[in-house]
């Protein structure tokens, strides 16, 4: 496999949306692998400020105003930055990886593909990789994406 694309970026807290990368392949290939990783997936420490912020952001939903300190702490522990990957080839869907793995390795060939993806007879044309940000819980969240082919 040779790496033909390597990119990264920084996301701010609260970002919701997608960032798409289009890669034009110079020739047909038999295999393709994508690697995607990001940091700050969970909170490292749970501060009083964070607890107050969560309760305020809930605006009375989820019984937040009557939640115990233990419940708030447990909720914050379960919160995560959620970034997913969707892959198309020549505008056709070829994979969506919803599993929370970090890093994610996504593989395509004629006979095999990572769960969520569809094997491809040939890897050719334009690959579009969309980083889908469902939630980003911390500022300066760094991500890295690379694409390799064979």
């Amino acid at each position: 496999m040779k790496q033909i694309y390597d990119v990264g970026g920084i996301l701010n807290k609260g970002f919701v949306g997608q960032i798409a990368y289009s890669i034009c392949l110079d020739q047909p290939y038999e295999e393709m692998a994508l690697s995607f990783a990001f940091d700050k997936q969970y909170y490292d420490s749970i501060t009083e400020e964070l607890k107050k912020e969560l309760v305020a952001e809930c605006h009375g939903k989820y019984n937040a105003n009557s939640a115990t300190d233990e419940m708030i702490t447990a909720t914050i522990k379960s919160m995560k930055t959620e970034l997913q990957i969707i892959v198309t080839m020549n505008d056709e869907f070829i994979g969506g990886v919803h599993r929370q793995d970090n890093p994610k390795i996504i593989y395509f060939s004629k006979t095999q593909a990572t769960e969520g993806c569809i094997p491809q007879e040939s890897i050719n044309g334009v690959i579009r990789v969309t980083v889908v940000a469902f939630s980003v819980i911390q500022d300066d969240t760094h991500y890295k994406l690379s694409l390799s082919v064979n």
Partner: protein
Amino acid sequence: MYKRLELHNHTIESDGNLTPSELIDLMCDDKVDAFALTDHNTISGHIKIQEALAKKNIPLSCIYGMEYTTYYGHILCFDLKEYIPWENINLHNPELLFKAIKEKGALAGVAHPFSYGYPIGCCRFEMTFTDYSCLDFIEIFNNPEPLHEVNEQGLLWWESLILEGHRIAFTSGMDLHSKDSMHGQFATFIEGKENGDIITELKQAIHTQRTWVSKGPLLVIEKNDYTKTLYISIQNTTKPGYVEDERPYLLSLRTKKETLCFSFNHKAPLIIPYSNLNSSSILIPKLYKDNLEIENLIAVAPVIYL
């Protein structure tokens, strides 16, 4: 005949723990007639289920679908033949995606509308419709979700839309991610024929709002406009885990103005003259035991229009 459907299931193709083959086995063991494959944001499992079903040669049908997992809530689709991009979803105009899905011939509905949303997660349906005609169904019971905070709210939302005059079907789902027991949980039922095409039957049921949700028995209501009566009976199903007992059932009919309640026995049908329904034109029938608390809800039946 009535067919039991399990309409919300995941596999290892998204975040479930079951392989497509294991999901089929689980459905078979629980005597399900048809199940939907609704992995998050992928259709990669469709071919794998097709191949596994062909190999096993069993009388079980699959409804190929997907659970669109968006920034602002989850959308269940049935009979989705191709992936329709959702990433440009508009918080203030969900109709765009719903219409795109429906234009391809699929059914589209809201999953677990009151699950946790911002800032805790992305599962609550945060979008607001201005045109409900593009919404085929609402998943009123997502079995693993909390009864009061999520499912009761979902049921009440659907009821309020019905009483406002919208024609929207209802479903339930296990939201299966692993090998969980389905006993004592709500399932969806539709009318069908023994060798009938499940996709045709499901579409007919959803488009005419003829679905049932039940833990076992079905509440069957026949209108007789000639005698001006409702004929109400209980139809037993083969859903495992439900045990009939001698306690009487309570039939609740929610209308715009009130909730009417009638006690009856599963062995003897109930006949209600229209004159006892206080001139109500929309009635939402539900079946309970003991009292009308949500914990005692057994079944929801298609809405009656008089």
